[in-house]
């Protein structure tokens, strides 16, 4: 059984933040097609502020996730601030007291983040939101684990499903948020939240995969 250490894994969050900052222009461009184009700007601002606080400190994954979630929730606002803020703080809470994280704990962490999002938002899968990435990604991870796949192979399944979920939003009509006002005109464009969510999950998966080792 594979697992990774919670301590000193805060850098995973740092690379995740770098991914968002690097994709600042891309995310804003997607958002601009059906929103007001500030998704990348706001996300990069929040993730950048969190990265400043994490950089150079030897943090556990739990503490780094909590730092990120708190910054998003208290400094960013908009829709993504509370949604990702809740997701990351819930992630952090789930693994707070777990020294070595295995696939089961990781799954519990993902579910807890999803629950948090669903408690404050009202979107469902198919509404053209980040849930179209997050929900199938979690389902794929759980299915792979259940089939006896390793943690690392389950993470690969998660990334594939996240990206397929992101791409599925291209053919969806937005049902919630500002883009929902466009009706049919939101067709043919990726959802910015679903896109940033795929970036986040992929970066998280890569960071974990690099740290995996067989349980002692």
């Amino acid at each position, binding site marked *: 059984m594979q697992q990774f250490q919670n301590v000193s894994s805060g850098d995973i969050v740092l690379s995740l933040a770098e991914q968002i900052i690097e994709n600042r222009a891309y995310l*804003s461009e997607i958002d601009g097609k059906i929103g007001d*184009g*500030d998704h990348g700007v706001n996300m990069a*601002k929040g993730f950048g502020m969190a990265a400043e606080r994490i950089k150079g400190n030897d943090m556990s994954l739990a503490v780094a996730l909590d730092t990120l979630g708190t910054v998003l*929730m208290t400094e960013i606002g*908009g829709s993504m601030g509370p949604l990702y803020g809740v997701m990351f703080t819930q992630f952090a809470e789930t693994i707070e007291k777990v020294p070595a994280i295995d696939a089961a704990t990781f799954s519990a962490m993902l579910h807890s983040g999803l629950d948090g999002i669903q408690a404050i938002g009202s979107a469902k899968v198919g509404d053209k939101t980040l849930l179209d990435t997050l929900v199938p990604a979690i389902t794929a991870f759980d299915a792979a684990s259940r089939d006896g796949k390793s943690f690392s192979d389950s993470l690969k399944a998660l990334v594939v499903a996240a990206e397929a979920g992101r791409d599925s939003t291209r053919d969806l009509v937005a049902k919630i948020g500002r883009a929902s006002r466009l009706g049919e005109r939101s067709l043919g464009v990726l959802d910015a939240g679903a896109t940033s969510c795929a970036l986040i999950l992929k970066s998280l998966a890569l960071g974990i995969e690099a740290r995996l080792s067989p349980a002692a």
Partner: protein
Amino acid sequence: MQRFINNPDEVVEDTVKGFVKAHADIVRLGSNPRVIAARHAPVSGKVGVITGGGSGHEPAFIGYTGRNMLDAVAVGELFSSPTAKSFLDAAREANGGRGVVCLYGNYAGDNMNVKMATKLAEKEGITIATVVANDDVCSAGPDEREKRRGVAGEIFMWKCAGAKAGEGASLEEVQAIAQRAIDNCRSIGVGLGPCTLPAVGHPNFSIEPGTMEVGIGHHGEPGVRVEPLKSASEVARDMTKIVLGDHNLTAGTEVAVIVSGLGATPLNELYILHDTIESEITGRGLKISKTYIGNYFTSLEMVGATLTVMALDEELKRLLDVDVHCPAMP
């Protein structure tokens, strides 16, 4: 477009700084730099009245802070909801011990952040009652009123609730009057030209020369139709027709009217629109008892105008007449 800005990422900070300096007799900066509070707030024993929303709509929301209006306002990034923490801090600044009403627009971010702030406030013993504005007729059908956006009708909601709270009403009474005020409001926007977020640098939607977008939202949300630009009289007639068509007011009803510019339309054009709007409204046997013409709720430099009509009953009319002392209203 050329702008008076320092750093495109610090437009909100710089706006707030200038605003507080200009209106220091009425407002102050909260302990959270993203909260503007009335100088007199909180008033012990008075229900606090707050709102919050994205920046770029000035004088909304901050300009409506003051006596008999809003006690505190949470300030968001341009066109982006304030954080839950800012809504919570606004409630703290406004709390005089009898609870706080948060009156805000129906946008996904605001809904979520207010919901979180309400939960956080509860933990420290502050009750936040909420009323969500949904006056924008074109943003959803009459059967889906709860989905409609809140726009300039919010001003009437703040005005009536602020005056009611000033009279010492209870939290339930202030919430009820705010709800009645917004229920009695209908609004529509017409866009003639887009706006640009400074940090983004290009407009995120376009309005072709010679056309107009009927039913446009405050962030450039598309309207119900794009059509060739008509004369002011024809546009005003359409706007009045759409607003009153959703309202079903009986002859003799008194109404209050706001004709607001969206940022780049000069006042004279608003008066040109109003000339026809007034004739259309009174022509239907309605009586206008109060009119506001100006830039009351803008959208950066969007070209266009909005019309809001609120049906009045005796109490709403009385509350609308109560004197206010805030930067945005005479």
